[in-house]
């Protein structure tokens, strides 16, 4: 058999096994996982989570002669069981774009000029040492856990302030505050197993058919085998997900709170809520005058009274969703014989009322007792591979510390100071600037309050992804005393005018650990060399930290005078800041095992690093068993699943804000958005993603196949609006908001279909930068901006004379 025939036979075997194994949630034992593409053809295989979204699919990466030549869905991975979405076709290619950054570049006389790493590290360290308080780091959910942890420790432990943020602030911060307000602790109680057991799946402003296709296919596959799974799509435009839905409910932007309140109102009014569950496990809460995240306690009667105006008829008036559909939803939630899973992502989070709507959806599940059983869960999804692992769990945010600890609490600071062996008081209690404020201050002259002067961006592209970039990003590039450092793998809208650009290693060019949307921590090892002089972000951080230590910045020493990031091997310190010695020891392991000491406080326990090298991820809390093994947790707060639930409790919300093991069912009123369509700007404008491109397209736009499949941004418009404006499909129009305008082609009856009066534009295209038009108003608790709704107008482009 020749190699080609061998590969085809192996491929068919892999596909056949995947097809059999893909019977998610079925009792029959799946075929024994094997790797059909065996080393016989010289390819060396190893595991890694996919680099793209927050689903956390595991892939097997095939390397031949130092290059990735094959990708296979990992048959041992519970998340994807051997399957990948179409982006998996290209995940290996993401490393091989022709314009990879390969050398540090320092702007000299306005031109980015190659310099050595030593000079680059020195430039950063001297600038930071001269004025540490005005230095900030901005990362993302694409940071690995060790990278994020190192960045956080450098800022909070080394420099003694809290100016660190991550772009997850822009995509899931409202999910965090929703979980905190409801359960007292972040992240979903359920997991992907719920998709195998639910009878009803409700997607709230969510399009998993395109954005989380591997999760969505678990449900579609069940239906294709004859199982009844009712899919309800609640959205502001029709999407690919709508096409699969049994009911697709279109609502007026910003009125999702009315829908959730309408469901709760009927559950209470008709007495179909789960009284036993509520009596045992829940309390009621509403906003207080001081507008705190904790709000104020209210009685059930208060709650009932507050909901009274949300009758089906009123909700129909507010939201545009028919009263009968509100009744239908309430009747579903009122049934005890069904299991209901809710999914959401940016639609609910990028919302000036994001915390409120997150809390309300949790509340509907709690009120109806659709919680704590497999298939009964309110679950938020994330868009980045480690938004949960690095940002939410490590705490790379201006108010946070690792493991759910916060800088505002003295006991939390003391606990972290103890683990870091730094003097009491090293960690500042003063919360830093959230993302919008950080960039506002970076784009404000220093003598006018712009007290962020040096900003180091890693693993993200704020020059494209921030809202209202005209105001928040671009001014900084014209201010002489502002210095922008960007670590990235490709040129981006952010590197374009950066003062210093650092070439980074990507994905399997370095070791890494990610944490996905279902609390699953996933590890991989370096498999290939990065191009040129590209180096891991974590090394860059440790090298700068060491240079600061050498320059005498006091915070870079611990209580005993040792380097803050001292890494030992066989009892001896390893000079990991010297790249020649960086791989003498596994730095990821050292950082991770230090970090995990801080994860027990809020019962987010992680296993030792070594456990993850053997697993396809483990869902926390991961607790050691009497036999020395480590057991993950599928369903939190549920007896028999979660090791922290006391025997006999059934369900126990042990992190309750009220310290009584109760979750909070919130009332939050429907309120007007900060900007609505009017006579001058008559359309709603919504932004989002597309299947082909991941986030700002930095990687996927460099994959020719994906760039050709979706070459540029567009504006989706209803046929009715296009007809009224006299616009043809594909015709260029001028799209304008109060913040700017761009010209882009119209797509009518395209992949998504907005209703009349609404527009949609994807944000992946830096040449057609929709975030020059979006609003930076944000949720008061999560500080997450609202990219999903602002007022816009469209006009035909004037013909050239």
């Amino acid at each position: 058999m020749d190699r080609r025939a061998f590969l085809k036979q192996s491929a068919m075997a892999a596909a056949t096994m995947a097809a059999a194994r893909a019977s998610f949630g079925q009792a029959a034992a799946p075929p024994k996982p094997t790797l059909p593409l065996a080393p016989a053809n010289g390819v060396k295989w190893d595991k890694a989570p996919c680099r793209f979204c927050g689903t956390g699919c595991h892939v097997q990466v095939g390397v031949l002669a130092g290059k990735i030549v094959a990708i296979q869905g990992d048959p041992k991975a519970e998340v994807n069981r051997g399957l990948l979405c179409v982006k998996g076709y290209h995940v290996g290619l993401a490393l091989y774009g022709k314009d990879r950054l390969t050398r540090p570049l320092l702007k000299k006389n306005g031109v980015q000029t190659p310099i050595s790493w030593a000079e680059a590290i020195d430039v950063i360290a001297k600038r930071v040492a001269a004025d540490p308080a005005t230095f900030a780091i901005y990362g993302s959910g694409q940071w690995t856990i060790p990278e994020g942890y190192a960045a956080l420790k450098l800022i909070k432990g080394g420099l003694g302030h809290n100016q660190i943020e991550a772009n997850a602030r822009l995509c899931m911060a409202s999910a965090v505050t929703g979980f905190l307000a409801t359960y007292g602790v972040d992240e979903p109680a359920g997991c992907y197993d719920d998709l195998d057991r639910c009878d009803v799946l409700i997607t709230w402003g969510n399009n998993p058919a395109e954005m989380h296709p591997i999760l969505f296919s678990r449900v579609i596959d069940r239906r294709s085998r004859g199982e009844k799974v009712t899919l309800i799509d609640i959205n502001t435009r029709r999407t690919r997900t709508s096409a699969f839905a049994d009911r697709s409910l279109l609502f007026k932007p910003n009125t999702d709170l009315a829908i959730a309140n309408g469901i709760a109102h009927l559950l209470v009014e008709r007495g179909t809520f789960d009284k036993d569950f509520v009596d045992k496990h829940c309390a009621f809460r509403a906003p207080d005058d001081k507008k705190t995240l904790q709000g104020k306690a209210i009685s059930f009667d208060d709650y009932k009274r507050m909901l009274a105006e949300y009758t089906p008829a009123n909700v129909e008036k507010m939201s545009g969703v028919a009263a009968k559909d509100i009744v239908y939803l309430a009747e579903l939630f009122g049934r005890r014989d069904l299991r209901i899973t809710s999914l959401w992502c940016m639609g609910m989070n990028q919302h000036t009322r994001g915390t409120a709507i997150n809390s309300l959806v949790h509340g509907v599940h709690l009120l109806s007792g659709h919680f704590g059983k497999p298939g009964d869960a309110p679950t938020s999804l994330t868009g980045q591979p480690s938004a949960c692992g690095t940002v939410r769990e490590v705490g790379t945010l201006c108010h946070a510390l690792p493991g759910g600890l916060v800088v505002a609490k003295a006991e939390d600071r003391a606990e972290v100071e103890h683990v870091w062996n730094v003097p009491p008081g090293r960690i500042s209690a003063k919360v830093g600037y959230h993302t919008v404020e950080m960039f506002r201050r970076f784009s404000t002259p220093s003598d006018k309050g712009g007290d962020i002067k040096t900003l180091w961006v890693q693993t993200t592209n704020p020059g494209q992804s921030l809202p209202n970039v005209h105001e928040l990003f671009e001014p900084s590039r014209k201010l002489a005393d502002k210095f922008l450092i960007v670590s990235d793998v490709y040129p981006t809208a952010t590197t374009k005018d950066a003062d210093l650009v650092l070439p980074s290693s990507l994905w399997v060019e370095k070791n890494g650990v990610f944490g996905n949307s279902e609390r699953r921590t996933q590890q991989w090892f370096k498999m290939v060399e990065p191009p040129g002089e590209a180096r891991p972000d974590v090394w860059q951080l440790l090298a700068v930290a060491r240079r600061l230590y050498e320059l005498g910045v006091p915070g870079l020493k611990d209580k005993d005078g040792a380097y803050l990031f001292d890494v030992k091997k066989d009892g001896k310190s390893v000079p990991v800041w010297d790249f020649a010695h960086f791989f003498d020891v596994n730095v990821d392991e050292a950082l991770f095992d230090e970090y995990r000491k801080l994860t027990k406080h809020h019962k987010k326990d992680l296993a030792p690093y070594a456990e993850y090298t053997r697993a396809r991820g483990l869902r926390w809390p991961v607790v050691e068993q009497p036999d020395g093994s480590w057991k993950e947790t599928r369903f939190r707060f549920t007896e028999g699943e979660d090791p922290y639930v006391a025997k006999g409790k059934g369900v126990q919300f042990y992190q309750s804000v009220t310290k009584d093991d109760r979750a909070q069912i919130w009332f939050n009123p429907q309120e007007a958005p900060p900007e609505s369509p009017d006579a001058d700007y008559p359309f709603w404008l919504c932004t989002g993603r597309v299947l082909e491109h991941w986030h700002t397209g930095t990687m996927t736009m460099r994959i020719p196949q994906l760039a050709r499949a979706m070459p540029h941004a567009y504006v989706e418009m209803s046929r009715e609006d296009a007809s009224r404006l006299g616009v043809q499909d594909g015709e260029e129009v001028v799209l304008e908001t109060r913040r700017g305008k761009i010209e882009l082609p119209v797509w009518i009856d395209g992949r998504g279909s907005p209703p009349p009066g609404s527009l949609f534009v994807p944000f992946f295209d830096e040449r057609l930068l929709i975030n020059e038009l979006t609003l930076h108003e944000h949720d008061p608790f999560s500080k997450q901006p609202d990219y999903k709704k602002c007022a816009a107008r469209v006009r035909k482009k004037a013909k050239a004379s």
Partner: protein
Amino acid sequence: MPIASVVITLDARATLHDAALAALRDDERVEVGNRVGARVPAVLETRTADEGEALVREIASVPGVLLVELVGVDRSLDEGDA
């Protein structure tokens, strides 16, 4: 010559299901395996990765095909294409 393995989920309705299978078998780049319930394993062999990725999309648009999921892609026969 990238070789990709995929799993294709077909519509349960017999007419659509059969029509989709027939369409897949008509394409010489597609080798269709044995059905496992509503899922059909298949191997795609194309001249370039570009064509392979386009073929995945093409299959997804065949009437009766609900989903196409990737199992693996191997470019080791044409390392330059990777």
